[in-house]
């Protein structure tokens, strides 16, 4: 039992903190004020590349045994040992989101499309889609598009169809809210071979930007998280080469398609929860500082509520870390991952909301960081499975809730 980061992770977190204070937060505030995403040619993205960000986690090795799997090397002194663990990723994500979660998602890199490509992709697909991210000469993005206008939580109900036509696939449909889609080199799109098949009909494609038929990009106007683009788009008779189908046919014959998507959610849920913890922490720090400046801490009501938020944030963080720790040891963590995701966003919202109450009319002016966090954080209970969906996932495990 240990509730401490190792030296290597601690240093990384400190690095993020410096970057966060100097760059990430100001950029997030600016994007919020301007009401538009950070443009892809912003010098900040270039800077990130220079300091080694914006890259893929894929090592470039085709031999899976050579993949740097998550390891726990807490007994080993080598500094690099824990870098790739889920726990380390969590700590970094939390800190980055502390400074600005919108900017965090805007960062170049393969994004949410990366885990399915690493997990399901053929050697050739990894070469094509991830190799450019190993040492990118310019900022590059990948995008992940599952959600549709008519299907969000009910993933099985997606209606984007794919049809084999000779050595091509033809896609038709519409996708919603995909992060970084219009600037991405490729978009990982989920489609179905037959709408009546449900999950078994699902297929994943990696569609390259510029493919004819891929278009109508619409960058949504959002309540918060304005620093990155959430983009809706359509595919109209969009023809892609047969080898754009992620994985191989036998992969889907084994019904691994949907599972592939869902498995990646198991690892991203604690990550998103950790981001919420970071945002909640930011709101709490600001709220506490304001309360001190304004001499509000003599009020027992204020104190009690601060106590509650700090406590709930701590518990949320522990839930995240436990889920990640289980993942690092390849133990089942479905329930634990969903617990973290069910708890953290609500706590973070409560933190921001309390912050607004302490600010009073100062918050109502709409210019305070806490006010921005209050808007930003609501998304965390929606993305990567809503709070309700997390409870369904847990209940399936706990009481075999039928589908």
């Amino acid at each position, binding site marked *: 039992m*240990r*509730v401490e980061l190792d030296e290597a992770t601690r240093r990384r977190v400190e690095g993020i903190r410096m970057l966060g204070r100097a760059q990430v937060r100001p950029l997030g505030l600016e994007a919020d004020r301007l009401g538009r995403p950070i443009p892809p040619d912003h010098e900040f993205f270039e800077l990130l590349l220079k300091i080694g960000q914006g890259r893929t986690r894929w090592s470039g090795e085709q031999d899976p045994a050579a993949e740097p799997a998550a390891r726990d090397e807490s007994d080993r002194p080598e500094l690099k040992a824990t870098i790739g663990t889920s726990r380390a990723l969590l700590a970094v994500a939390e800190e980055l989101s502390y400074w600005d979660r919108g900017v965090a998602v805007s960062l170049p890199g393969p994004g949410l499309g990366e885990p399915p490509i690493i997990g399901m992709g053929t050697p050739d697909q990894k070469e094509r889609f991830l190799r450019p991210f190993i040492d990118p000469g310019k900022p590059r993005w990948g995008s992940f598009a599952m959600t549709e206008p008519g299907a969000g939580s009910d993933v099985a109900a997606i209606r984007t169809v794919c049809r084999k036509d000779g050595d091509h696939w033809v896609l038709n449909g519409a996708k919603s809210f995909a992060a970084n889609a219009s600037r991405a080199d490729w978009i990982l799109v989920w489609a179905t071979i037959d709408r009546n098949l449900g999950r078994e009909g699902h297929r994943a494609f990696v569609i390259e930007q510029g493919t004819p038929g891929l278009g109508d990009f619409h960058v949504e106007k959002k309540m918060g998280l304005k620093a990155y683009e959430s983009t809706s788009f359509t595919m109209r008779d969009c023809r892609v080469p047969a080898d754009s189908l992620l994985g191989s046919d036998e992969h889907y014959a084994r019904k691994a398609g949907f599972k592939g998507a869902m498995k990646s959610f198991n690892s991203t849920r604690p990550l998103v929860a950790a981001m919420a913890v970071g945002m909640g922490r930011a709101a709490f720090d600001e709220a506490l500082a304001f309360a001190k400046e304004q001499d509000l801490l003599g009020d027992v009501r204020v104190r009690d509520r*601060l106590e509650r938020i*700090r406590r709930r944030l701590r518990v949320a963080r522990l839930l995240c870390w436990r889920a990640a*720790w289980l993942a690092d040891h390849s133990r089942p963590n479905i329930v634990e991952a969903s617990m973290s995701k069910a708890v953290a966003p609500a706590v973070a919202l409560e933190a921001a909301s309390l912050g607004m109450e302490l600010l009073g009319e100062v918050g109502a002016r709409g210019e305070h960081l806490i006010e921005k966090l209050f808007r930003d954080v609501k998304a965390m209970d929606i993305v990567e499975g809503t709070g309700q969906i997390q409870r369904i996932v847990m209940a399936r495990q706990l009481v075999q809730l039928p589908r």
Partner: protein
Amino acid sequence: MIDFEIGDELELVRATAREFADDHLRPTLRQHESTRALSDATRAAFRDIGFATLEWPESLGGSGLGGLARFIVLEELAAADPGATLALDPLGPALYALVECGGEAALERFGTPLADGETARSVLVWCGEGCRAKLEFGDDAVSGAIPWLPADAAAQLVLLDADGAHVVSEGFTLEPARGAGLRAAGAASVTLDRAPIAASYPGGEAAARAAARGRLYTAAMLVGIARESADYSRAYALDRVTFGKPIAHHQALAFLIADMATATDSARLAGWDAAWRLDSGHGAEEACATAFIEAAEQAMYVTPNGVQILGGHGFMQDHPVEKMMREARALSLLFGGVDAARNTAISELIESDGPVQLTWEAPDAGRTG
């Protein structure tokens, strides 16, 4: 690096505690409650395992284990029978007042004679913030009244407040009370009439540590109670059918059951975090107070819902869930209850200039400025 592995030794401790609870506590929990007594065999088994002296230093015949070990044992025992858990432990949280404020000498003097569990217990009396006891301290005696202790008899009272601990071994009488919960341990109000103070151990910091460990002790029991209530009602919900399906499959209850599991895990993690801080020599007063509040709040969320899930049957004493609800309520009144703990938990935050300490933070973590 962050690690939730408790290790082989504590896994064994946990398995032993679970087995003891299954063999000796669960089958007879209503009997313990109504007779306010435990069998000699149960007491002997408890003593032989060495649970009583788990945290005692090895020099005094203990196992020298830490707060996490105690937490794990208490969760297991209290899951079965919280009242019996208190009744079995000869010192309970009084241990912390003795060792923190008076050191090993105090433990040897007042604790050792009780270690075999044959005589009455040493009972901790919280006299600090939030207590409802009215006590007046003279130079060498104390008088007053304590409205409730979970005990029918006491070999000694260890009075703990913010400034230190006092031990009294005579000059007090216990008047049996019905007790809202924890009846297996007894229930009494206490009158002290110029009770001579056998020993005084002043020291604010030591007293704060003692209170912290006591709160963690209570938190561990609350986690056990919440877990049992959640597990019991979950099993029931899979069995009970209404409107053509198990009630667990009505989404309102499915979500509630998921939230109750989350609540229990939340309280346990807060407790383990505090126990780790304690055992690794970090300051733990805030963390222990926080763990106590979390456990109390979550237990008071889980246990009434445990009754709710059983409906009318939950209200009847054929099932243990009503008992769990009462015991959670009574237990979380100890140490001045959650409000006193809140003050402890927040005071550090008010005084410090740094960022919020959630769990571990870098020394220079901080906000924009």
